[in-house]
């Protein structure tokens, strides 16, 4: 490939005459790579600096503008053995970065304050039982107030903002009782300090904030890590297109640089990377990634084509249309809008608990105050006890119970090759009782493979797959996957529209259409045996074979579907492909309930029916046509090979050739959900013990501090169990030959 990719749109020009480029690097596996990459690049003339971030595998390169081209950087990295992909950080990620830094600052302030206040508080506690003078105690209390007030004002911001946001929408969340508790405890402590009383609660308040911020920060950090890996993966797939320039020259461009109206050339065997209209040429295209339909569609001048389709036999010239134009995309966008508005806002477990919890706690505090006044205590003492009730019930453990489990469980998912898009997935996944699969690209592998290799003579197969290395045709690529010897034959020549040929051992070898290989009869027989497969023929001298190529099932699909059913989940298939093509897959997997030929709207209608039956549906799909269904399902998963729009709708994305992550996700989610409820239970029991004590006036600041840290630690330790036994990383799936779907009913 002599062509170089034009990276200019990714280069940032800086004021000091340098240019800056961010790259996501593939192939970093050890610390020595840092030196190799940075050292190697710095030898290039014109490079000002290269810095590799080993945590997220991104490289920042700077050079003096005009002295070298960005392509030289990529070429040098390629020479060193790394693949580099231009990287453009997404807005969401930058926003998350900022938020994580802010949370860390709040955490640092709260940590500093809680340690220093504890120093003062412990002195007061021990002084109270020995010989502290009231003057010293007041001095310590004033100092504590001096630290606590600004610290809470700063470090409490995340909670103030979230509580205000909820109240403005006339909802409550966990942060509302937290904020009420914190503010009341602070103001009471200040009043007590002015009255030079014995007890203040500055230490409890700041410690509470510190614990809560720990939970928030960890949650955020986990999500950020997942997002960084996911967006690296996205940039590894940077789509490119051949743009036809004004002067007729062809330049390789990232699709992000294309504008509507540009002309793009698509050669046979290339994936179409833009939405557009054909202006010249004709071809058959495979739209399985878009619509799920595996039969090829003939396109000619004025046909609409979609990004993600595979171009088979003819060269096409397209004009790029603006995103969102075209009948299919329009429909998908419209359905997505409806699905998004119709999707009932799922109320998170913690918020549901808070909805009941807050009124109960506040009522308990009020009852305490009234009871104490009625039984003859002073108003001051009554208020003090009521506030002690509020402080002790301030949902420290409750607010940690859910996020800590989420952090640990998303770590477990991350190791299983699943990336979460949404935070509340666990709760929704745990309730799932029906799994709906898309067929093409979800149950089957996104790429083609040879299905009848077992029946062929191994020598012929070996020769065919080695010859296939010299062709770019999608069918040949499928054959080439089987090659054990990855050296293409020296003098292989490709004849466009026919196939490849080479002379080996004095006999001519051909791979291509049945007519080209003179194997029409054999091909007719093969097609008769499997009408949904494509055929590719191979001849070597007099010997001929015909290979059937189509999308095979994911290697572990049958086993996983069976295990899902054993868990009591109802598995179904909703496919955009023809019913005749879905039937054998459904039979191979033992799925009785399936439907083919579904339009995006049909899929949504089916999901709505299931919803009306009271089912909670997990939708697993990858095509553009699945995006609305993913959005409207209770919870959704999609493979990493899915269309971008579809991935954006899915709650989680899984990696690899196997279907196992679907099962792991459900297992981990169920475990996480169980632990969340256990943790809430622990928090509840803690409150059942603590509230009566506080009610009776036994809660001194020392008891409050012990109770709060004790319950928080207990909940956190329990959450660690979400890691589970299966915490070892799943080894990269070996490039095994996919198991073909069994034929017949």
């Amino acid at each position, binding site marked *: 490939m002599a062509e170089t990719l034009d990276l200019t749109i990714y280069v940032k020009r800086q004021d000091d005459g340098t240019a800056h480029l961010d790259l996501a690097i593939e192939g970093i596996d050890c*610390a020595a790579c840092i030196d190799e990459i940075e050292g190697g690049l710095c030898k290039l003339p014109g490079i000002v600096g290269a810095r590799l971030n080993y945590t997220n595998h991104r490289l920042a390169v700077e050079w003096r503008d005009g002295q070298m081209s960005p392509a030289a950087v990529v070429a040098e990295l390629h020479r060193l053995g790394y693949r580099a992909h231009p990287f453009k950080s997404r807005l969401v990620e930058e926003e998350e970065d900022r938020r994580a830094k802010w949370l860390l600052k709040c955490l640092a302030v709260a940590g500093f304050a809680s340690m*220093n206040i504890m120093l003062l508080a412990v002195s007061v506690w021990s002084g109270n039982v020995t010989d502290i003078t009231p003057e010293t105690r007041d001095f310590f209390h004033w100092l504590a107030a001096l630290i606590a007030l600004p610290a809470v004002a700063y470090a409490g911001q995340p909670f103030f903002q979230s509580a205000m946001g909820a109240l403005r929408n006339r909802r409550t969340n966990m942060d509302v009782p937290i904020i009420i508790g914190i503010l009341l405890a602070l103001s009471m402590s200040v009043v007590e300090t002015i009255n030079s009383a014995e007890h203040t609660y500055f230490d409890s308040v700041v410690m509470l904030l510190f614990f809560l911020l720990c939970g928030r920060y960890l949650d955020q950090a986990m999500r950020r890590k997942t997002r960084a890996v996911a967006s690296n993966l996205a940039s590894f797939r940077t789509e490119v297109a051949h743009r036809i320039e004004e002067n007729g020259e062809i330049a390789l461009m990232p699709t992000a640089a294309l504008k509507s109206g540009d002309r793009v050339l698509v050669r046979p065997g290339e994936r179409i990377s833009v939405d557009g209209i054909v202006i010249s040429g004709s071809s058959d295209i495979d739209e399985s990634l878009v619509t799920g339909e595996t039969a090829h569609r003939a396109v000619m001048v004025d046909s609409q084509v979609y990004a993600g389709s595979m171009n088979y036999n003819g060269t096409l010239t397209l004009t790029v249309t603006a995103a969102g134009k075209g009948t299919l995309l329009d429909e998908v966008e419209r359905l997505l809008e409806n699905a998004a508005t119709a999707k009932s806002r799922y109320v998170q477990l913690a918020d549901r608990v808070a909805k009941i919890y807050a009124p109960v706690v506040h009522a308990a505090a009020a009852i305490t105050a009234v009871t104490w006044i009625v039984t003859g205590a002073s108003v001051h003492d009554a208020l003090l006890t009521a506030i002690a009730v509020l402080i002790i019930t301030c949902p420290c453990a409750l607010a940690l119970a859910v996020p800590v489990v989420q952090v640990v469980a998303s770590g477990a998912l991350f190791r299983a090759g699943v990336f979460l898009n949404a935070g509340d997935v666990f709760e929704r996944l745990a309730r799932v009782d029906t799994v709906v699969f898309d067929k093409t690209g979800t149950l089957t592998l996104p790429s083609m493979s040879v299905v009848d290799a077992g029946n062929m003579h191994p020598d012929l197969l070996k020769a065919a797959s080695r010859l296939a290395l010299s062709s770019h045709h999608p069918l040949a690529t499928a054959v080439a996957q089987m090659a054990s010897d990855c050296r293409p034959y020296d003098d292989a020549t490709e004849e466009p529209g026919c196939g490849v040929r080479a002379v080996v051992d004095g006999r001519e070898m051909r791979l291509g259409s049945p007519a080209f290989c003179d194997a029409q009869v054999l091909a007719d027989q093969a097609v008769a045996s499997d009408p949904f497969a494509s055929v590719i023929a191979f001849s070597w001298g007099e010997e001929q074979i015909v290979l059937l190529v189509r999308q095979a099932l994911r290697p572990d699909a049958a086993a996983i579907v069976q295990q899902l059913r054993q868990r009591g989940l109802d598995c179904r298939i909703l496919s955009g492909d023809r019913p005749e093509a879905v039937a054998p897959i459904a039979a191979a997997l033992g799925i009785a309930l399936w439907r083919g030929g579904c339009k995006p709207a049909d899929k949504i209608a089916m999901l709505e029916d299931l919803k009306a039956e009271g089912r909670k549906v997990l939708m697993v799909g990858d095509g553009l046509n699945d995006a609305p269904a993913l959005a409207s399902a209770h919870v959704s998963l999609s493979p990493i090979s899915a269309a971008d729009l579809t991935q954006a709708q899915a709650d989680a994305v899984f990696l690899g050739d196997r279907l196992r992550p679907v099962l792991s996700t459900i297992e981990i989610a169920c475990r996480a959900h169980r632990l969340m409820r256990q943790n809430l239970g622990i928090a509840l029991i803690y409150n059942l013990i603590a509230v009566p004590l506080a009610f009776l006036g036994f809660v001194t600041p020392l008891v409050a501090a012990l109770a709060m840290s004790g319950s928080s630690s207990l909940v956190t330790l329990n959450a660690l169990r979400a890691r589970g036994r299966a915490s070892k990383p799943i080894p990269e799936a070996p490039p095994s030959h996919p198991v073909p779907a069994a034929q017949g009913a």
Partner: protein
Amino acid sequence: MEVLIYLVPMALLLGLSGLAAFMWSLKSGQYDDVQGAAVRVLSDDDMRK
């Protein structure tokens, strides 16, 4: 106990300087690549020239 009058503020001042140091390190990007920092210390790039 008069010693507390300057001892306690001094302790606070020390704590504050620790906080300031953390804020500075956060701002200067020392937490951007935590894993990288751990392995860079092993590289002998200072020996090259």
